[in-house]
């Protein structure tokens, strides 16, 4: 299978939700609660998490 690609540029520091079929970002906000609420009940929309800044330290495990 081909992996699902996502262009995260411009969303650094924000929490995002994606279209599960395409990987396209459909919701973004600095407050995760806003993304979780707006995504609720929407078909094909999945919440991923926070997009890090390029210079952030990368944690191993529970990032």
């Amino acid at each position: 299978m081909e992996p699902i690609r996502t262009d995260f540029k411009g969303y650094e520091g924000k929490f995002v939700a994606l279209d599960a079929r395409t990987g396209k970002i459909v919701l973004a906000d600095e407050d995760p609660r806003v993304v979780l609420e707006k995504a609720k009940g929407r078909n094909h929309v999945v919440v991923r998490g926070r997009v890090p800044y390029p210079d952030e330290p990368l944690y191993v495990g529970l990032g």
Partner: protein
Amino acid sequence: MSALAELDQLPWLYPYREDPQHTRLGQPVFRPFVQVSLANGDTSTTMLDGLVDTGADAILASGLLADQLGIDLSEHEGEVHHAVGGRTMNTRYKTVTMRLHPGSGEVHEHREWSTQVGFVENWHSYSLVLLGSVGFLDRFTVTASRFAQAVAVEDQDAFDRRFGIVPPA
């Protein structure tokens, strides 16, 4: 398991998905995510990308999701302090309903089961759910192939049917 499970038989396939972390020398990172949601009574979360993690002992989730489900974690079923990545994280366990959705993200189609989930305080990072051994990998046969760039989720006994019961070494 949910009666809805009869509508669409396993295996369910999930393409690997790109992660925003670039830990592999500037190359894109693809990870084994599957779509899940959590429910508590009549309240459920939205669908979430859950990271399949064979190194995790249990299902761990951001404490934010407990808030979404109206769960009072002061009434937890057990508490553990995890030392991860040089930090200590407080995890409180509570039994909830887990739902696995197909890779297309059909919100009304799912398999569901009851299990303990460890809710982690102040964990708001690139995935809000880790799907570990107890509660997920003991419910299904899960195959993650970086070569195929996909995850296959099959019935619980698929491994035994394919390979037989593995005797102790």
